[in-house]
């Protein structure tokens, strides 16, 4: 038979072997060489469920919670599980249209794939939540998930407390992928500065899921799970009652108030006007409210207490006196004969409110009378000292003092986006005057004008230096962190360091200035701010300012500045108040400081003060040019949208009577009355008589 074919058995064996080797080769490739399949299998079957810890609570100095947690609900959707659902009913329940519905579903598929849950609507209103709960069985694929939100029980502190919101892609990148899509992160204020403390530690539960994405149990019996650790609370110096008063008194006004405890640098109250209810930025209307606030020209989102830069004006004078004393160019008994104007530079500027003889007979009197000539003169004495050689060196020395006082540099308060204020460099003057300038060039720096700019926080801090007789602590909110550890010194160590800025001035000399400031409340410009039973030292300031609107320079109402501390002999509170475009410092800023001091020092308000407080709250001093500014901004934006979308509803309300939107205007050429033009007229989309058949578009199969 075919015995001669016996050798073929070997060929057959070889074929078997070769095919098996090929299979083994692919197995080596899949199982040993390619590392990607293990993680892919994990990704398939293991779902790391994040357990969010409760965020830390923020307390005021009396242990009242001013920022707390509450539970709201997110609506989650798993697109693959939506089957046979009554979409129309769902949409009417959620108050959206079907196009929006489709858009959101597609978005969530792109974000988290078809089979994983993603947020369909975050933070349901209580009504929506109730409606959905009743009907949830009708909507497969949708489920409610608890989401803790932040609440502000006193409705105050929007600027300083900040808010939380979903992380942006930028945040995620910055955190080196620590945060994930949908996480919440502190934005602005203490929420942002102390994010790591407040956030706590996220926990993870590893769950097993099957091919339909159902969770079927714990992975490895929870061996790799980590528990969530709640965020720690912050204990602040804030006095929520003071904060409430400050915010109320700023309502309807533009300005800022900062109150500091001089002995510790702890901030008792910080308000910026106009303000808003922080609860507006939590919950379901968050985005709508945010848009409204962001588009307001009064900039309610701006924390003017740390971001606003103002010319300090006369409130700077006591500091000027301190520098002159420290440098030894004057003694408290130094006097200057001012006849109503300062003539030493030949211009007769600046003028002075007083012209009677002896109104600047010594430092105390000059301070009480706020003599411009006196303080410009002592500024010049400081910078023109022989030991510095020339004015530029002298000026740099003077600037060093300013920086030491915290002016022109960021103080380092524990809320973000602090403004440094402005104390010009010599280069600024060199440039403006081609290198040739003297102390006469910028002599008004001595009375807090020229190019000087300071934030209300810096002004309040400067008061602390006087009140403390030479030192300050960096202003800050947080006194302590619950369960504080050594690692927390990153946050708090810098606030517990004493800044000794003036060392050569004996206490008696401080006393002269303090007395001078006290005189201001006795017979000077701040007599209205006397607090019953307390000695108050204060200084008012009034700064002129201008703006450009519609191409014209217009003079605005003065900025009302006010600084003070009390009690004069043992200061417990230092305050700076700025009222933008309100009028005189004593008239418009003083009352706020007065109410705050009275409340803080006496614990109650006297009947008269209460009445004054209530009247003040009602007054509206919003700058008049804001209305015009708002109109201009809105109309420019409307035009921008109109140009993008060609939808004239954006600009309709800005058009004059009878005026037609620009794009429509073009088509208003009188059409020739031919049949052709009539048809084209009717086919115009704006008339909607007929819908023009859309051009056939290429669609891929």
């Amino acid at each position, binding site marked *: 038979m075919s015995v001669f074919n016996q050798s073929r058995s070997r060929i057959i064996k070889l074929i078997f072997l070769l095919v098996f080797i090929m299979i083994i080769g692919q197995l080596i490739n899949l*199982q040993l060489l390619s590392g990607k399949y293990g993680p892919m299998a994990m990704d398939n079957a293991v779902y790391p469920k994040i357990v969010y810890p409760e965020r830390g609570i923020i307390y005021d100095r009396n242990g009242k919670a001013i920022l707390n947690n509450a539970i709201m609900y997110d609506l989650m959707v798993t697109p693959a599980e939506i089957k046979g659902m009554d979409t129309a009913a769902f949409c009417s329940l959620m108050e959206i249209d079907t196009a929006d519905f489709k858009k959101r579903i597609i978005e969530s598929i792109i974000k988290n794939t078809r089979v994983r849950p993603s947020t369909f609507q975050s933070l349901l209103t209580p009504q929506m939540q109730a409606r959905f709960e009743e009907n949830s069985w009708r909507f497969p694929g949708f489920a409610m998930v608890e989401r803790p939100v932040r609440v502000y029980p006193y409705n105050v502190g929007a600027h300083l407390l900040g808010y939380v919101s979903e992380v942006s892609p930028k945040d995620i990148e910055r955190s080196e992928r620590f945060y994930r899509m949908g996480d919440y992160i502190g934005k602005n204020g203490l929420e942002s500065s102390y994010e790591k403390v407040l956030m706590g530690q996220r926990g993870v539960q590893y769950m097993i899921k099957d091919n339909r994405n159902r969770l079927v149990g714990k992975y490895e019996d929870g061996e790799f799970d980590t528990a969530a650790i709640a965020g720690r609370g912050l204990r602040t110096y804030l006095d929520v009652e003071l904060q409430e008063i400050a915010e109320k008194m700023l309502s309807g006004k533009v300005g800022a108030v900062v109150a500091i405890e001089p002995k510790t640098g702890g901030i008792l109250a910080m308000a910026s006007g106009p303000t808003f209810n922080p609860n507006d930025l939590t919950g379901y209307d968050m985005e709508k409210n945010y848009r409204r606030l962001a588009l307001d020209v009064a900039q309610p989102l701006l924390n003017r207490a740390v971001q606003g830069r103002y010319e300090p004006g006369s409130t700077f004078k006591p500091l000027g006196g301190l520098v002159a004393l420290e440098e030894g160019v004057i003694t408290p008994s130094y006097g200057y004969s001012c006849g109503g104007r300062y003539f030493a530079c030949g211009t007769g500027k600046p003028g002075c409110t007083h012209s009677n003889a002896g109104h600047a007979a010594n430092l105390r009197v000059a301070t009480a009378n706020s003599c411009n000539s006196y303080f410009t003169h002592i500024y010049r004495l400081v910078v023109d000292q022989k030991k510095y050689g020339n004015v530029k060196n002298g000026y740099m020395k003077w600037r060093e003092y300013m920086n030491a006082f915290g002016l022109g540099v960021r103080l380092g308060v524990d809320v973000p986006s602090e403004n440094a204020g402005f104390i010009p460099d010599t280069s600024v003057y060199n440039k403006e005057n081609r290198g040739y300038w003297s102390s006469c060039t910028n002599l008004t720096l001595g009375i807090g004008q020229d190019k000087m700019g300071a934030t209300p926080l810096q002004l309040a801090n400067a008061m602390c230096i006087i009140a403390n007789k030479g030192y300050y602590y960096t202003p800050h909110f947080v006194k302590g962190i619950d369960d504080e550890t050594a690692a927390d010194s990153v946050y708090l160590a810098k606030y517990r360091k004493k800044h000794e800025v003036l060392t050569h001035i004996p206490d008696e000399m401080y006393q002269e200035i303090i007395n001078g400031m006290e005189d201001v409340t006795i017979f000077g410009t701040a007599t209205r701010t006397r607090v019953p039973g307390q000695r108050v030292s204060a200084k008012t300031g009034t700064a002129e300012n201008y703006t450009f609107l519609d191409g014209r320079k217009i003079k605005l109402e003065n900025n009302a500045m006010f600084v003070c501390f009390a009690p004069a002999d043992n200061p417990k509170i230092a305050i700076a108040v700025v009222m933008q475009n309100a009028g005189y410092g004593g008239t418009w800023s003083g009352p706020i400081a007065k109410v705050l001091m009275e409340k803080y020092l006496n614990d109650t308000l006297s009947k008269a003060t209460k009445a004054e407080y209530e009247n003040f709250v009602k007054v509206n001093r919003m700058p008049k040019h804001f209305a015009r500014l708002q109109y201009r901004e809105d109309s420019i934006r409307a035009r921008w949208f109109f140009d993008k979308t060609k939808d004239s509803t954006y600009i309709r309300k800005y058009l004059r009577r009878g005026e037609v939107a620009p794009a429509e205007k073009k088509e208003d050429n009188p059409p020739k009355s031919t049949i052709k033009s009539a048809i084209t007229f009717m086919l115009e989309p704006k008339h909607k008589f007929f819908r023009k058949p859309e051009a056939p578009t290429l669609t891929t199969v």
Partner: protein
Amino acid sequence: MSQRNPGISKGIDWSVVGIYILIVTIGLMAIFGATYKEGDPIVQSFFNFSTDYSKQFIFFGVSLLLGLFVLLTDSKFFPATANIFYAAGIFMMLLVFPFHSNIKGTESIIKLGPLNFQPAEFCKITVALALAKYLSRPETDFTQTRSQVIAACITLFPAILSILQKETGLALVFFAFFLVMFREGLPASILVVGFSVAALVVMTLLLEKNLLAFILLGIGLLVALLLRRQIRRDKVLLAKIIGITAICVGIQFFVVPFLFKTVLGKHQVERIYSTIGKEIPEEYIRGEVVINEKSGKQENTADYNVKQSKIAIGSGGLTGKGLLKGTQTRYGFVPEQRTDFIFDTIGEGFGFIGSFVLLGLYLLLLFRIVTIAERQRSVFSRCYAYGVASVIFFHVAINVSMTIGLAPVIGIPLPLISYGGASLLTFSLLIAILLRLDADRQMVLR
């Protein structure tokens, strides 16, 4: 060897029995691993046969029992009845056409009370026997083309019936018997031509139509140039070269599109393209094609299955995750995991080592069967043994290859491992008959 029952045990090749039992045991464990659900009562299930592994265990018992019957049979019985069995098998396959039950999208199954009977499965045995019978006839001269054609017809007739029953995978199995014919003297050139045609078909799928045509023409021209001296002497050679080139281009331009448009089913086209990793060309698309929203590419359902299967096996690593620890197979990511994709359970649970051991066992079995084949005195036994080896080889190679993405997904089981009584019984009987014939290897059977 038992002294009490020398009739059965005498001459039995125990190594094959040992490997057989080992593989079936691994199979039972794999089915257990794939289908066991947390909290199932294991012991209880063996009494009410509610679970797949307990059912498979019963089939194992039945297989052993039938195997015993086969071993008790006289070995002359098999060559004597081979043709009758073959005829019966074909008859049953024909019966399928009017009486098939329409389950799982196949038309190859007859329902007999609670049992599903697939005649094509049974035909694997009958073809092996009938082919052996035909080749062992004294009057058969296998060097003649006529005999070769008859042998091919015996083998391929059930295959054609299978294709008509929409069981392309099963039909392909019958091509494995060409290995038997190769051993018995089928000219190697036929296999080479067959392989070349297969390569041409694959190239057609991979390359652009006109490019491939140019390449083929180029090859033709090159051959003509190289052989120009011979051509000068013999003009017929030139005609042959032109003819072969023309046939190749014809296959590429007309036969392949015809196959893909009319012969193959929609899912088969998808699976083939999934294996070679290309999108289905527009001309072969039937019905709707889902376009992936993200990538803008076609969503091929066959892709998902193979991808999950590769993830399962790949994630096993060197040592595997352990029995019942494989997340891919336990939580439903792998499709058909107890039948066609049972290899995933081993690959994921026991890793490369487990897979290697199992494949090693198969190779050992195949080599052992070839050795057994070569020691037969009768041609019938030898041919039959090669038939068994070819069928097992084809099943193992294709099944494992499709789970690791080397072959298109055609639904054929992994011998002795996959869940399913019919498959287990068929392979058990194939092996049992082989053992019986081998026990009487000194006899000359006709």
